[in-house]
């Protein structure tokens, strides 16, 4: 059914057609409309699920995990501080191997309080074991919610999945999108069949003490789940294509790659913006392409190696920063290419805390980068002055104030 809806509402509609049975959630801007709509759908009898209005995100994730382990399809949504508050439970979900799906509406982390888009929240959860996918359009958000359960519930994977969607740019803008019917989706995504669960008919202990002699094996098996997901992502996309006639790219999404000498690498809605920059640069006769990283975990190592090798340069855009280092995507891309494809790369940090990023800015930065004029890491839209720093003079002032 075609609808004109906001990204958040589309997520709720997709969760409904995906046959979600339990939804524990806690409100945070910019995610609230997802859970409000789910609560409405349930109240109106249009969605057959249990909504748990938990008292915190830590509890939301705890209930998500325990509901899933009891054998039902569970879903939640959060953002920024909510995701950070779940941190312990994110590890729990992955460690106890529950195939849950959670939407994270990407938002900056305070202080200072900032409700707008960047990727710092999900990037900070990189090592929790969750699969991470970043979508770039409304339709992709819908389709990825449905595919997500195919991927996570596959017995070769059984790892939780975080679907990341940019705050406001996607969450609050209205777009026409197709939400398939429940029956069609059920043919693609059959009811959840757990491999193990909490069941009085077959009592088993989950999450008990594991001594060093067994621990590494439990962790390596998580990595095997992540590795298996690489294959399963493609299978889920292929079958989705057959069932619904749409495809959004798989581990990565390429644009004008064939003859490109230089590539822009980006995630989320900035990648959509970069397409326009690529078109403009192409019009000016420059052989530039775009590589959108969809799955950040598992990281598209093979795809990057084969698609980046032989290029003259990369500009990696990060909407996040790993303090003391550089943008996180930049580090990951270089790590994947190291020893396999020797491509000069630079990093553009833009759009933090929702600062608007235009295709002109991306084009200008890419022009500079591909002429070899950019620093290794460029804070592309930050205009820091001395007044923004705690300068030595200011510290001296405090010192005077504090010492009598």
């Amino acid at each position: 059914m075609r609808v004109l809806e906001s990204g958040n509402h589309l997520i709720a509609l997709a969760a409904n057609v995906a046959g979600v049975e339990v939804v524990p959630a806690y409100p945070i801007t910019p995610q609230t409309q997802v859970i409000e709509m789910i609560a409405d759908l349930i109240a109106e009898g249009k969605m057959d699920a249990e909504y748990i209005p938990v008292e915190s995100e830590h509890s939301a994730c705890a209930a998500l995990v325990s509901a899933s382990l009891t054998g039902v399809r569970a879903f939640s949504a959060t953002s920024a501080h909510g995701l950070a508050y779940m941190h312990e439970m994110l590890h729990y979900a992955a460690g106890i191997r529950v195939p849950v799906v959670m939407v994270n509406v990407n938002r900056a982390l305070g202080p200072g309080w900032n409700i707008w888009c960047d990727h710092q929240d999900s990037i900070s959860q990189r090592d929790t074991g969750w699969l991470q996918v970043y979508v770039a359009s409304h339709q992709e958000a819908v389709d990825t919610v449905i595919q997500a359960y195919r991927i996570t519930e596959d017995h070769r994977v059984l790892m939780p999945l975080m679907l990341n969607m940019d705050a406001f740019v996607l969450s609050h803008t209205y777009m026409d999108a197709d939400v398939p019917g429940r029956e069609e989706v059920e043919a693609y995504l059959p009811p959840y069949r757990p491999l193990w669960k909490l069941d009085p008919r077959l009592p088993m202990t989950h999450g008990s003490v594991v001594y060093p002699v067994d621990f590494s094996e439990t962790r390596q098996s998580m990595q095997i789940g992540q590795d298996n997901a690489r294959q399963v992502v493609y299978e889920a996309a292929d079958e989705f294509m057959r069932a619904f006639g749409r495809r959004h790219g798989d581990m990565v999404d390429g644009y004008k790659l064939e003859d490109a000498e230089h590539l822009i690498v980006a995630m989320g809605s900035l990648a959509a913006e970069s397409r326009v920059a690529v078109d403009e640069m192409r019009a000016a006769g420059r052989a530039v392409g775009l590589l959108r990283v969809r799955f950040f975990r598992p990281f598209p190592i093979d795809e990057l190696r084969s698609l980046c090798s032989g290029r003259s340069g990369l500009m990696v855009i990060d909407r996040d920063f790993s303090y003391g280092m550089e943008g996180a995507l930049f580090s990951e891309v270089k790590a994947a290419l190291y020893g396999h494809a020797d491509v000069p790369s630079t990093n553009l940090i833009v759009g933090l805390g929702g600062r608007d990023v235009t295709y002109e800015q991306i084009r200008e930065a890419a022009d500079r980068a591909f002429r070899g004029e950019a620093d290794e890491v460029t804070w592309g839209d930050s205009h820091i002055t001395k007044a923004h720093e705690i300068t030595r003079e200011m510290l001296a002032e405090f010192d005077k104030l504090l010492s009598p």
Partner: protein
Amino acid sequence: MVSFKDLPEEELFLAGSTACQGCPSSLALRMAFKALGKDTILLVVASCTSVLQGSYPLSAINLPLMNVAFATGGASASGVSAAVKALVKRGELAEEPNVLVWAGDGGTYDIGIQSLSGAAERETDFIYVCYNNEMYSNTGTQRSGATPLGAWTTTTPGGKAQHRKDIAQIMIAHRIPYVATVSLAYPLDFYQKMLKAKEIRGTKYIEMLAPCPPGWKFPSAQMIAVSRMAVQSGMWLLYEHEDGETRFTAATKRILEGKVKKRPVKDYLEIQGRFRQILSSPEGQQAEDMLEKEVSESIRRLQGWVPEYI
């Protein structure tokens, strides 16, 4: 009235537990399982009980069991409770199994109170048992919000300077359908309260005083004796709260009816090692008086006493 002959013979708490000798949690688990039976999903909050069940790949507990994070007793129960509802709706389960949370006092009074309070306010259908050994024993005897005034722990080396809080009263304030306190020295009272909790829908909170031999410093063979003295001295009051009414039970009832004489708190303090320091210090008498006052205030509050300032 149930008698010991009525207890089912089937053991769901199996041999091979790694608990200390005389561990109150293991004995209580055994008792609780007898009351609730096989059709129970157990959630164990991080505590000694996460460890005493045995380690991977073995388990001494023959129930579906999930070990949950320290702060998540109530929330984890909410997830399971919602899921079993969905499974019944889907026709996969004939009826909802009991959902039992087993948590220590740290996981209840301190880090888990938010999650427990949330679950209770949402009227989640589950039984929450707090086995209260009045300290964090799993991490080596640190103070908790349940540690009584004067008690030694590794983080109250001179004896705790503050009173414990009364979490059962906090749970009563949530207007949940059933709150009860139990003691291992009064096993049939415990068993009956568990049976009752099983029949009631909504959130049921049951708290047991759990004298822990290594943490409280008494010989393991004395665990039941210490449990009994806690009740006889009034330092642990047995009651149940239902439909807005509090009813005293077992020995507490007998004491308050004047059938048995209450023992002085001092008798209780002296049969364990954790009050030794405070008792032998200049503040010893004062601590004893303050605890005696705490007991009489608790009783009066349970009897419906309204403080004058209201």
